[in-house]
């Protein structure tokens, strides 16, 4: 025990709710980092993120400003937190916050905080609005799409794609629409929630498969684990899933990493058609909320990312257990109101 090196790792995304952030799962994986005595610092946006209060997740949590406040206020807050905690590695877990963290990464490095994130170019290349061009360039199957800024553009797009078609928000959420009326409603709802543009995508029928993977930034794959959702919530989130044995899916992740030199964790959202063609539906530039399944299957991606961030060599994983299943559950935690009040008032617990 005494020979273990101490390491402090900060994670965001502690909102383990019905549409969960990956932070709690990432923290669990990092806690199992071999050879280290791990201290986890939670970074939360809201005082009611469950991960703040869950036993064995964050040793201490600090509130940070929303991404919309800009990178400067985030930096000021991180400087304060780092003075208290001396963070070694920081793992951002939300799409919407990544841009600010990528922008700040050189300054964070100067402060002794290591990250392992994609570059701005990598981050933007796989963005929803660029996905079609990106996949075409690299020879991946991808549904046709159209980025629109006005609801009046919908009829022409619908005539091109036919129904059903998928109307998607800039950051999150997608609605399968059977009629123009449904598409218009989805447009307004997603615009109000996530802003413009809206992406309209051709509907692909098939089995939804996800792959969680980790790239070393030089084209090599450290880990790739495919999963099929066994239970999907009304928000489209996996509430249960199982690891699959499919070398084609692992190869797809490897091809993506080779094509982009991807640095860090990511998730491929695929729709595999009945004739076996894997269509790229989305590429999420961070670990998914189900990332702890990779730990259960024998490839601890969050821990491997921490090692890479610390400059250590990481031997790529070669095998994982097929048929490992996760089942998410909800649980009523009981806390004292003082804990909540303290966090709300002081922005830390």
């Amino acid at each position: 025990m005494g020979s273990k090196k101490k390491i402090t790792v900060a994670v965001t995304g502690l909102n383990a709710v019905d549409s969960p952030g990956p932070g709690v799962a990432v923290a669990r994986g990092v806690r199992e980092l071999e050879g280290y005595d791990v201290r986890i610092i939670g970074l939360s946006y809201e005082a009611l993120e469950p991960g703040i209060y869950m036993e064995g997740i964050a040793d201490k949590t600090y509130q940070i400003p929303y991404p919309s406040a800009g990178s400067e206020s985030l930096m000021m807050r991180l400087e304060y937190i780092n003075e208290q905690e001396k963070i070694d590695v920081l793992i951002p877990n939300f799409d919407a916050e990544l841009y600010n963290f990528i922008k700040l990464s050189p300054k964070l490095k100067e402060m002794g905080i290591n990250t392992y994130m994609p570059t701005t170019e990598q981050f933007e290349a796989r963005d929803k609005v660029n996905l079609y061009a990106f996949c075409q360039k690299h020879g991946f199957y991808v549904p046709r799409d159209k980025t629109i800024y006005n609801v009046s553009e919908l009829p022409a797009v619908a005539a091109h794609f036919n129904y059903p078609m998928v109307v998607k928000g800039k950051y999150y959420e997608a609605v399968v629409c059977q009629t123009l009326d449904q598409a218009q409603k989805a447009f307004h709802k997603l615009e109000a929630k996530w802003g413009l543009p809206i992406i309209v995508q051709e509907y692909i029928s098939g089995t939804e498969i996800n792959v969680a993977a980790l790239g070393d930034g030089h084209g090599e794959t450290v880990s790739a684990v495919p999963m099929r959702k066994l239970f999907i919530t009304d928000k489209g989130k996996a509430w249960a899933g199982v690891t699959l044995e499919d070398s084609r899916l692992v190869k797809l992740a490897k091809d993506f990493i080779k094509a982009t030199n991807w640095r860090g964790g990511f998730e491929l959202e695929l729709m595999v058609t009945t004739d076996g063609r894997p269509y790229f539906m989305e590429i999420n530039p961070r670990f998914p909320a189900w990332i702890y399944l990779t730990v259960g299957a024998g490839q601890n991606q969050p821990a491997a990312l921490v090692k890479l961030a610390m400059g250590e060599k990481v031997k790529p994983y070669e095998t994982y257990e097929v048929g490992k299943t996760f089942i998410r559950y909800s649980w009523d935690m009981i806390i004292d109101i003082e804990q909540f009040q303290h966090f709300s008032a002081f922005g830390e617990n």
Partner: protein
Amino acid sequence: MKILTNIAVSESGYLFNPTNGDSFSSNLVATDIITLMKQNKTSDEIKKALQAKYDVEKSTIERDYDEFIQELGDNYLLSTDGK
């Protein structure tokens, strides 16, 4: 017809296809058929074994077997290249 080699079958008749994550519950007769298929028995050998075990007409065995094989095929559980 051969069942895919990587299909996992439990004693209780639970089938798991590790390639696409599909899972199925099978009854006793179906479990017997799958177990025999995994032992590389021919269709004639399987039908004979079923007839010996269950007290039913040969024609019933034939029909049930064919229907079940069709169902396995419909669910992508059969090998198309002999693997």
